[in-house]
């Protein structure tokens, strides 16, 4: 057996060394991978439909994307993803051909060319001023060259500027100091000179934002939210009056909120599910215009002609949505009244943007861009949804996978392949391709055939395990299931536990877990998924759970818990229906067991003394270890357990701050515990799941790169046993700092950091070996099976460990690191590095081998050790994203396929990308372009040849005998 493996490994090594890079041919793009582009939840939208050219809508989103979409089909014309901290505050079209964006709290102004999205210097014939306000400072920017003409600083006066009123030669800046003092400054538009100012103290504190109703009138709520303050500015003088809401609306229960829709002379006030439209007269009086029940959203006003403004709002009506467009000045007749059926999994309407167009009969038609609760974007025109985009997928919170249903019997091959003729034709085409006799048309046909192969998008489990469901939890609280074959949405569900309610004000989805993975005896049950959420961003808010059927997306069960959630620990035990036991730990360090069944308690009681838990308190620099103690004392609940503290590691706060922790994936499979060195020496890997890698940085060097000198920066890394709290390894990198990205797999950890002395990024590898097993060297013990290497071990044996480590320079800065995972763990590993350019680079683990030396011996070379170099090579063919970019890359997920050589990789950010990687090539299967037809042909030819020669020899024999 060992010999066979050695033969096999040698062969493998041979193959690997001959194909050092595993790149992709041009015609293989899109065969196994797919890429989807999204923009995220739309914040601002501007229609650009005046010109006869392509109609488009410009949007800026919460994912800091500025994009131009095709109004006909919803496709992206161009798109720019600004950095994570570069929040887009405003969007406008200037001079009809530039898109202006203001971002990063108003500190960055950019202009983009409208047709193609190129960044532009503003060029204009007229000398127009662009006024920009940001960080307490008003800037006037010339529209000719983007130069700042003047600036006026208000930051010193701690004024929170709310609005800027512009007239021909005077600019008024209005805002609050504190929440009740209102200030107005008048500035000269030419040079920014301060002309006059006025201030007044309002009778009460204010609530919420100041809303401008017209150029000189503002409304704001008082802090009791029962009165409306109307502020009027005339020639720099402030006057105000107030009116209780109850005067306008008798039934004034509930909290009032002023909606931020900009409507001339009007404003919208939301109370419960009702929206009041209130008109502000020239005298500053408030008049109620309309009450809208079940209102879902109110758009900004749209100026359709001189003095005519339209306003759109939507109402929910059972399963339909009623869209109404009204003329503001002529409230009683509707410009448009439409009912639209929208999938109820999209939730409520969040925002509406309207645009008008001229119908053939010279009347106005309206189209509305609707942002839904699940962040999807719809374009509605003439009562129908023209297109929709699932932009919730741009903000992925967590990802897990699920198997597909097992294929039912009785599905014949012919049915799958449509018909035999097609099948035969396809194979003939392929054969032509192999024999290089295909015409260019045939080549195109072959490519099309390969791309739309029905095999990869079937809804059943396949033999190789390539087809799976990717279950994705998005920030909007919607769960999507994507098919790995082609990336289509199989089902999606908006979890009602993650929707805003009175009880749960601001729910957030936290994580997603595999709750039930049936195999063996529970195969007839569908797998299910657990979604853990919380009723608000604070840790102290109660938790919510949802259980979803992974095959059809039905919500099986949901719970609003009384306790909080600080951590979720999936235990390595399952009950008789294959439901995994989970411990949910709240902020008071009680553990709650799920599923809540007596059987689960039995299972936990059996393993009671073996369940440990640790908490990393990054702010205090403490890591604590805990063990289960018994049922809760203060809470009467048999599913509640107390912990006792076992150990704690306190890092010196003046020299070290925790900046990164990483642990092994719980589902990782390791094939062997031994590592064979050259000269048949054996080292035993320290393969334990209970290890934690911690990276600490010097407090001064926690910030940006360059903030600290090399002398005051250091990085200390620890490898800690999380059962006993024992520090297995500690190492200091002087002159280095974070950010640290790390990945832990088998017995090694690879981490990425910045070396201040060398001014370069570095990657280090640490491999941990179990020294105490090293004396198992007697062959006869193994021959007779008299060793105890596979008997269960405990961390309390305190095994002696040794480490090997090495550092290499690496060119890129990194957004995420992941490692490939395969079904049995035999295949060599590749590191998947999400680079700053939003691509994913595959780097062989062999490059990060601590045993690399300058001149490896012949034996070491045979083993595959690469000569030492100071930096890691970046081979452009190993970008698994090839020419594509996963904009705003956040994370990489790897899942093993059933085929040992292959690992499935899913990278997400604003875009989604999925592919398969085979770190040691697909040694266990024929490649996709293998020509079965050629094989068949060869066999047929051989059989025919055998038959012919047999006949010939028979004949010759006969002649011989007659002679």
């Amino acid at each position, binding site marked *: *057996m*060992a*010999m066979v*493996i*050695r*033969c096999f*490994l*040698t062969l493998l090594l041979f193959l690997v060394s001959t194909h050092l890079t595993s790149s992709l041919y041009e015609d293989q793009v899109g065969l196994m991978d797919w890429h989807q582009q999204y923009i995220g939840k739309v914040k601002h939208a501007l229609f650009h439909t005046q010109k006869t050219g392509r109609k488009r809508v410009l949007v800026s989103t919460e994912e800091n994307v500025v994009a131009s979409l095709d109004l006909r089909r919803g496709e992206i014309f161009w798109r720019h993803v600004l950095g994570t901290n570069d929040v887009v505050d405003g969007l406008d079209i200037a001079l009809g051909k530039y898109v202006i964006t203001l971002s990063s709290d108003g500190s960055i102004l950019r202009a983009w060319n409208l047709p193609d999205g190129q960044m532009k210097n503003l060029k204009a014939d007229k000398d127009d001023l662009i006024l920009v306000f940001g960080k307490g400072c008003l800037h006037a920017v010339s529209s000719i060259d983007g130069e700042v003409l003047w600036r006026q600083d208000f930051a010193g006066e701690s004024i929170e500027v709310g609005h800027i009123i512009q007239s021909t030669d005077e600019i008024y800046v209005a805002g609050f100091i504190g929440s009740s003092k209102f200030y107005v400054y008048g500035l000269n538009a030419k040079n920014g000179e301060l002309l006059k100012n006025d201030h007044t103290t309002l009778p009460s504190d204010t609530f919420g934002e100041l809303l401008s109703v017209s150029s000189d009138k503002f409304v704001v709520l008082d802090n009791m939210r029962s009165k409306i303050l109307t502020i009027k500015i005339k020639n720099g003088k402030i006057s105000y009056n107030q009116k209780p809401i109850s005067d306008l609306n008798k039934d004034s229960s509930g909290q009032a909120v002023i909606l931020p829709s900009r409507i001339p002379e009007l404003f919208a006030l939301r109370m419960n599910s009702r929206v009041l439209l209130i008109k502000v007269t020239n005298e500053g009086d408030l008049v109620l215009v309309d009450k809208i029940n079940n209102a879902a959203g109110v758009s900004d006003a749209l100026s359709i002609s001189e003095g005519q403004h339209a306003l759109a709002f939507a109402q929910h009506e059972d399963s339909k949505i009623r869209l109404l467009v009204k003329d503001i000045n002529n409230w009683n007749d509707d410009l448009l009244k439409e009912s639209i059926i929208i999938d109820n999994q999209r939730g409520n309407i969040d925002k509406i943007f309207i645009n008008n167009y001229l119908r053939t009969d010279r009347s106005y038609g309206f189209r509305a861009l609707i942002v839904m609760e699940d962040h999807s974007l719809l374009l509605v025109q003439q009562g129908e949804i023209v297109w929709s985009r699932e932009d919730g997928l741009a903000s992925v919170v967590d990802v897990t996978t699920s198997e597909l249903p097992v294929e039912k019997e009785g599905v014949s091959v012919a049915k799958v392949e449509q018909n035999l003729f097609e099948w035969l034709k396809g194979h003939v085409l392929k054969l032509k391709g192999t024999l290089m006799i295909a015409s260019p048309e045939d080549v195109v046909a072959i490519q099309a055939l390969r791309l739309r192969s029905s095999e990869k998008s079937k809804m059943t489990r396949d033999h190789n395990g390539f087809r799976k469901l990717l279950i994705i939890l998005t920030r909007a609280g919607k769960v999507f299931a994507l098919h790995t074959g082609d990336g289509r949405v199989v089902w999606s569900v908006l979890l009602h536990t993650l929707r805003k309610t009175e009880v749960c004000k601001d729910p957030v989805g*936290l*994580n997603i877990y595999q709750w039930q993975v049936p195999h063996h005896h529970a195969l007839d049950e569908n797998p299910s998924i657990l979604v*853990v959420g919380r009723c608000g961003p604070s*840790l102290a808010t109660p938790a919510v759970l949802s259980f979803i059927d992974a095959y059809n997306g039905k919500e099986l069960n949901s719970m609003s818990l009384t306790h909080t*959630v*600080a*951590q979720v620990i*999936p*235990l*390595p035990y399952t009950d008789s229906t294959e439901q995994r036991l989970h411990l949910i730990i709240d*902020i008071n360090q009680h553990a709650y067991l799920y599923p809540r069944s007596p059987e689960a308690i039995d299972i936990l009681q059996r*393993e009671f003394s*073996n*369940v*440990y*838990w*640790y*908490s*990393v308190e*990054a702010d205090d620099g403490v890591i604590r*270890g805990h063990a289960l103690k018994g049922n809760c004392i203060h809470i009467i609940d048999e599913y509640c357990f107390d912990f006792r503290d076992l150990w704690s590691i306190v890092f010196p706060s003046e020299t070290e701050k925790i900046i990164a*922790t990483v*642990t092994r994936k*719980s589902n990782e499979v*390791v*094939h*062997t*515990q*031994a590592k*064979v060195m050259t000269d*048949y*020496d*054996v080292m*035993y890997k320290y*393969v334990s*799941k*209970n290890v*934690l890698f911690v990276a600490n940085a010097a407090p001064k060097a926690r910030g940006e790169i360059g903030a600290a000198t090399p002398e005051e920066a250091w990085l200390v890394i620890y490898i800690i046993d*999380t*059962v006993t709290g024992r520090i297995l390894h500690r190492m200091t990198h002087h002159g280095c700092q974070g950010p640290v990205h790390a990945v832990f797999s088998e017995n090694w950890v690879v981490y990425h950091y910045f070396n201040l002395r060398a001014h370069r990024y570095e990657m280090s590898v640490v491999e941990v070996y179990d020294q105490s097993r090293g004396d*198992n060297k*007697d*062959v006869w013990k*193994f*021959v007779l099976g008299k060793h105890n*290497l*596979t*008997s*269960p*071990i*405990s*961390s309390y044996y305190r095994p002696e460990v040794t480490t090997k480590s090495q550092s290499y320079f690496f060119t890129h800065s990194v957004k995420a690191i992941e490692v490939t995972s395969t079904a049995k763990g035999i295949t060599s590993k590749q590191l998947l590095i999400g680079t700053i350019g939003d691509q994913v680079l595959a780097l062989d683990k062999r490059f990060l081998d601590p045993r690399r030396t300058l001149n490896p011996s012949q034996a070491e070379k045979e083993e595959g050790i690469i000569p030492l170099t100071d930096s890691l090579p970046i081979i452009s063919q190993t970008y698994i994203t090839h020419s594509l970019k996963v904009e705003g890359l956040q994370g990489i997920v790897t899942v093993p396929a059933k085929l040992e050589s292959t690992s499935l990789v899913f990278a997400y950010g604003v875009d989604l990308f999925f592919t398969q990687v085979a770190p040691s090539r697909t040694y266990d299967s024929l490649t996709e372009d293998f020509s079965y037809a050629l094989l068949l042909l060869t066999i047929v030819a051989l059989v025919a040849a055998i038959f012919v020669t047999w006949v010939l020899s028979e004949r010759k024999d006969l002649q011989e005998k007659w002679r």
Partner: protein
Amino acid sequence: MEKGKGLMGSGGRRWGVDLSDNSTSRDIPDPPGFSRASLDQDDSSLSRQKKDAESNWKAQKAWEVAQAPLKNLLMMGFMMWMAGSTVHLFSIGITFSALWQPISALQSVGKMFEPYKDNKVELLGPKLLFIALNLGGLALGVWKLNALGLLPTHTSDWVSSLAPAQEVEFSSGGVNLG
């Protein structure tokens, strides 16, 4: 009928006359000038001589057969030296044939010496030599196998697929969910 029967009974085997059989043709007088005594004497000495020669020849042949693997051994040694010490198709083929030949030869030791089986021929010696030489060939094959590194004589050969030990404790946790 009776006579015929008798004729048949006694003469049925008479079709073949064994001239060397002295006893049956005693009633017929010898032809004149034929001296039986001299022939008898001559015949026996001749056959003894012949048998001696044959057994000598057989013994000689047996020794030759026994020594045949030696040539094979030398040949194999040369081939192995040619094949080198890296694992590839050629060296594996040669090594396995070097292992297979002695084994198959050892299996058919009896059959190999069958033609030389004689009461007077001592076959033990040749057989032992044959077996020894074949064992030598086998040893050479095994040595080659070892030289190629295909024999599981090192610890590394036995632990390369040793599954990691199960852990008694389970621990998990981390930073609080943000």
